[in-house]
C-alpha cells in the first residue's frame, strides 16, 4: 500500500465523492455520514505520508510512475517532497473540518455539496502530488469545476458574477501556463516531466517569458496585487466551506507553483524579476492591509487579510534564502489554519443572523462566550501573536528579508501593526462592546459540532505556533536543495 499511497489519496475521495453523489439528495443524513467517514478515513490514510517521510533527502518520495499517453509521452507520475507533503496533509485535515462545517448549514442538494468537496479534495491532492506537467495541469484546471459549482449553487446573492469571474480569471492564467509547459516540452525534446525541466538550460529571453506565463497562472491563484480582485468577490459569495477551501488550500497552490515551477525552472529570470515580485508582495502587504481596514463586511475583511498575508509568502520566496522560503511555507500552512478558522467563525455568526456586516453585531461575547474565546484566539493568531502559528511564518520571513535589505523587512513588518489593527478592530466591534440589538442578545453559543471544528483548528494553530519543528524539519533538506537549484544559472 505504501507505494500506491498517493494514488489512493487522490482517487479515494474522487470515487467516494461519486458514491456520495449516487446516494442522492433524498437521503441527506446518509450522504453526510458517508462523507464524514470518508474524509476522516482519508485523513488517517494521509498520516503515513508524514510518518513514512524521509526528511534527509530532497528526492521525490512515494513515487508512482506509469505511462499514460504514449503519443505525447505523458506519464501518470506522482511523488512528494518536503514542500508538497505538508500541503497534502493540510488538505486532508481541512476537508474533514469543511465536511463538519457543512453538516447542518447546507440543507439543499446535500449529497452534491459533499460530493463536490470530496472530489475537490482528491483533485487538490493531485495538484500537489503530480510530477508530470500535463497531469498537473489536468488536476489544476479540473479543480475549478467543483469550486465553480460550489460558489454558483450554494453561494450568496451575487454568486453568479463571482463564480464566473473566479473561473475566467483562473482559466486565463492557466492557459498561458499551458503554453509555457508546451514550450518547455518542445525545448526538452518531448518530455513532460517537471523534474526534467528543472535541469533544462534556457536562454534569458525564453526564461523571462516562461516566468511571466507561470506568473500569470500562480499570481492569480495566490492572489498577488493587482490580479487579486476575484478573491474578495469569490470569498464573499462562497458558502462557508467554499471560503475555507479557497483560502486555506487553493491560494496555497499559487505559492506551491512558484516553488515548483518558477524558481527551479527559470532561476535566472526569477532573480532578474525578483524586484517585481518583491514590490508586488510589499504592495499587497501594506496596501491591501489598508483596504482590509475599511471593510464593513467580515468576509471581505478576511479575504483582504488573506491577500495581505499571502504577500508575505511571495516575499519570502523571492528573497532567496532559507529563512524566507521556510517562512513562506510556514506562513502558507499557518494561514491555512487561521484563515479557515476565521471564515468558520464568520460562518457561525452568519448561520445565526444571516448577516456578515460588522455593524449588525456588537457584544457577541455575552451571549456566546465560548465562541468569543475561539474568535479572539484566531484573531490574535491572524495578527501574528507569538505562540500562535501566525507568528512563526511572519517572523521567519522578516528575518530572511533583513538579510537582503532592511527596508523590505521594515515595510513587511508594518503588517504586524496593520494586521493587528484590522483584525482586532473587527473583534472589538463584533465581539466586545454593548449588545447592539435583541437579535444579538438572543444568539445561541456554538454547539458541539461547531466546537469540534473550531477546536481542531485552534489546536493546530497553537501546536504549530509553539512547536513548529515537526513541520520545519521535513522541509529543510528540500528547501536547501531548491536554493542550490535557484542559485545555479541555467543560461547556456
Amino acid at each position, binding site marked *: 500500500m505504501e507505494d500506491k499511497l498517493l494514488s489512493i489519496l487522490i482517487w479515494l475521495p474522487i470515487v467516494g465523492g461519486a458514491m456520495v453523489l449516487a446516494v442522492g439528495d433524498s437521503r441527506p443524513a446518509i450522504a453526510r455520514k458517508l462523507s464524514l467517514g470518508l474524509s476522516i478515513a482519508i485523513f488517517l490514510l494521509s498520516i503515513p505520508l508524514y510518518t513514512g517521510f524521509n526528511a534527509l533527502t530532497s528526492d521525490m518520495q512515494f513515487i508512482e510512475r506509469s*505511462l*499514460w*499517453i*504514449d*503519443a*505525447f509521452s505523458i506519464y501518470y507520475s506522482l511523488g512528494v517532497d518536503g514542500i508538497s507533503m505538508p500541503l497534502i496533509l493540510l488538505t486532508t485535515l481541512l476537508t474533514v473540518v469543511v465536511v463538519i462545517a457543512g453538516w447542518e448549514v447546507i440543507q439543499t442538494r446535500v449529497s452534491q455539496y459533499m460530493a463536490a468537496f470530496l472530489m475537490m479534495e482528491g483533485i487538490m491532492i493531485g495538484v500537489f502530488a503530480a510530477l508530470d506537467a*500535463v497531469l498537473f*495541469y*489536468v*488536476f489544476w*484546471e*479540473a479543480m*475549478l*469545476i467543483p469550486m*465553480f*459549482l460550489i460558489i*454558483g*449553487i450554494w453561494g450568496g446573492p451575487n*454568486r*453568479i458574477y463571482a*463564480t*464566473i469571474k473566479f*473561473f*475566467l480569471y483562473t*482559466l*486565463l492564467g492557466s*492557459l*498561458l501556463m*499551458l*503554453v509555457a509547459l*508546451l*514550450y518547455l*516540452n*518542445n525545448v526538452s525534446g518531448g518530455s513532460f516531466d517537471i523534474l526534467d525541466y528543472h535541469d533544462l538550460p534556457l536562454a534569458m529571453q525564453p526564461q523571462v517569458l516562461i516566468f511571466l506565463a507561470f506568473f500569470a497562472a500562480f499570481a492569480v491563484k495566490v492572489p498577488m496585487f493587482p490580479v487579486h480582485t476575484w478573491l474578495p468577490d469569490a470569498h464573499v459569495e462562497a458558502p462557508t466551506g467554499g471560503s475555507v477551501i479557497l483560502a486555506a488550500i487553493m491560494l496555497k497552490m499559487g505559492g506551491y507553483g512558484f516553488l515548483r515551477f518558477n524558481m527551479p525552472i527559470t532561476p535566472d529570470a526569477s532573480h532578474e524579476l525578483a524586484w517585481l515580485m518583491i514590490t508586488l508582495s510589499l504592495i499587497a502587504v501594506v496596501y491591501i492591509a489598508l483596504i482590509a481596514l475599511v471593510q464593513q463586511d467580515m468576509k471581505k475583511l478576511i479575504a483582504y487579510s488573506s491577500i495581505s498575508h499571502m504577500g508575505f509568502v511571495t516575499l519570502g520566496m523571492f528573497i532567496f534564502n532559507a529563512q524566507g522560503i521556510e517562512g513562506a511555507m510556514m506562513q502558507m500552512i499557518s494561514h491555512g489554519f487561521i484563515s479557515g478558522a476565521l471564515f468558520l467563525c464568520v460562518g457561525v455568526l452568519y448561520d445565526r443572523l444571516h448577516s456578515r456586516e460588522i455593524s449588525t453585531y456588537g457584544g457577541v461575547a455575552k451571549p456566546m462566550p465560548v465562541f468569543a474565546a475561539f474568535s479572539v484566539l484566531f484573531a490574535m493568531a491572524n495578527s501574528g501573536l507569538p505562540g500562535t502559528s501566525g507568528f512563526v511564518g511572519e517572523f521567519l520571513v522578516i528575518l530572511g528579508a533583513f538579510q537582503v535589505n532592511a527596508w523590505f523587512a521594515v515595510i513587511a513588518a508594518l503588517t504586524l501593526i496593520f494586521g493587528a489593527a484590522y483584525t482586532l478592530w473587527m473583534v472589538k466591534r463584533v465581539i466586545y462592546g454593548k449588545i447592539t440589538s435583541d437579535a444579538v442578545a438572543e444568539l445561541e453559543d456554538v454547539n458541539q459540532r461547531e466546537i469540534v471544528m473550531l477546536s481542531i483548528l485552534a489546536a493546530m494553530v497553537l501546536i504549530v505556533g509553539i512547536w513548529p519543528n515537526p513541520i520545519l524539519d521535513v522541509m529543510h533538506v528540500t528547501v536547501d536543495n531548491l536554493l542550490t537549484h535557484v542559485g545555479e544559472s541555467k543560461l547556456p
Partner: protein
Amino acid sequence: MTDITLHSLKVSAAAPEIFLAFAACTILIVALFLPERSRDQISYLLSILTLLATAVLISVQFADSITAAFNRMFVDDAMADTLKIAMCVISAAAFLYSRRYNEERGLFKSEYYVLGLFAVTGMMVMASASHLLTLYLGLELMSLCLYGMIAFYRDDKLAVESAMKYFVLGALASSILLYGMSLLYGLTGSLFLNEIAAYMSTADHGNVGIALAVVFVVVALAFKLGAVPFHMWVPDVYHGAPTSTTAFIGAAPKIAAFAIVMRLLVGGLEELHHMWQQMLIILALLSVAAGNIIAIAQSNFKRMLAYSTISHMGFFLFGILSGSETGYSAAMFYVTVYAVMSLAAFGLILFLATANNESDDLDNLKGLSKRHPWSSLLVLILMLSMAGIPPTAGFFAKLSVIQSLVNAGLVWVAIAAVILAVIGAFYYLRVIKLVYFDEPETDEKIENTTSMTWVLSANVLLIVAVLPWIDSILLLCNAVISQLAL
C-alpha cells in the same frame, strides 16, 4: 490501354461505398412496396442498420496499406477507413436522435434517411478521393443531399430559407473550388492529386497562377468549413434547419471536411505549405475570435453552437496549418472529438424538444438541474469539454493542437488561441449557469425514449470515459497520418 476489368479497377477497395449506395437505392425502392404505416419505420431501421453494417464492412477490410483503385482516382488507406468508420457511426447516432423529433414534425419519412445515406456516401467518397473529379463528386453528392435534408421541413419558413441560403452559398463555394481546380489543371495538366503534388515540388512558387490557384482552393475550403470571413451561412443554416438535420450536418460532414482538407491541401499542395499556412493563420485566428465573441451575444442555443462551430473550426485549422504530421494528426483528433461533442450537443436539444417546443432557446435550459438532473450533468460535461477544460476529451484535443502550434514555432499564435479560448469559455459557462444556478421557469416533465437516453448518455460520457484509452486514439491518428506517405 489495357483491358479494364473489375480486378484491375480494384473495385473491392470501394466496396463500402458501393454497398452503401446500393443499400440506399434498395431502401428507396423497397419503401415503395411497404404498407404505409410501417414504411418509414422500416426504412429508418434499415438505414441505421446499413450505416452500422458499412462501418463493420470497413473495419473488416481495414487498409493496412494504400490501395489505389479505379485507375488511381480512388484511394483506400488507413486514414480514409478510420474517418469513414467515424462518419458511419456518428451518422447512425444522428439518425437515432432524429426519430422522435422528426415524427412530431412530419419529417419521419423514408426519403429523409435515404438522403442521409447518400450524403454519407458522398463523405466517404471525399475521404478516399485522390483525383480532383472524385473529390468534387463526393463533395457535391454530400452537399446536395444536405440541402435536401434541410428543405425537407418545407412547412417551416426558416428551414426553407436556410436551405436556400445554404444552396446558393454552397454553389458559390463549389464554383470557387472548381475555378481553383481548373487553374491547377491548367498549370499541371493533371487532375491527379499526386501528379499535382509532384509538379509543385519542382515548380517555381513565385508563379502568380499557382498563388491564384491556392487562394481559390483555400477560400473554397474556408467556405465549406465556415471559417471567418466566409462563415455567414453557418449560423443561419444551423439555426434554420430542423434540429435533427443540424445534428447531422454538425457532425459527420466536419470529418469529411477534414478529409478534403487533407487530400487537397496536404496531399496535393503540401509543397505550397508556406503559402497556405499564412492564409490559414489569418482565417483560423479570425474564426476563433469572431466565433467566440459573437457566440456570447446569442440567445438561441443552436445559433450559439453554430458560432462555437466556427471557433472550433478555427482550432481545427491550427492543427492543419502547423504543417507537420503531428499537426495533421492533432487536427484529425480534434475534428473527431468535435464531431462527437457537436452530435451530443444537438442530441441534447433533440432530447429536450417536444412537439410544440423546439427547446432551442437558451432560456429553456434554465433550472434544468432541478427538472432533469441527469441531462443537466450531461450538459455540464459537454460544455466543459467544448470549453477545453480537463479532464475531458475536449481538453486533450485542444492540447494536441496547441502543442503542434508550439512545435511549429508559432508560439504567438498559440498564445492568441488560448486567450481567445478563455473568451469562449464564458458562454459555455453561461450554459452551465443556466442549467445549475438558475431557477426553472416551468416544471414541465422531460421525457424521452429509453434508447435516446441511453445513446445520448453514452455519447456524452464517452467524452470523459475515453480518457484511459485516449492514448490508443492518439496513436491511431498518428499512425494513419504517417501512413499517408506525404
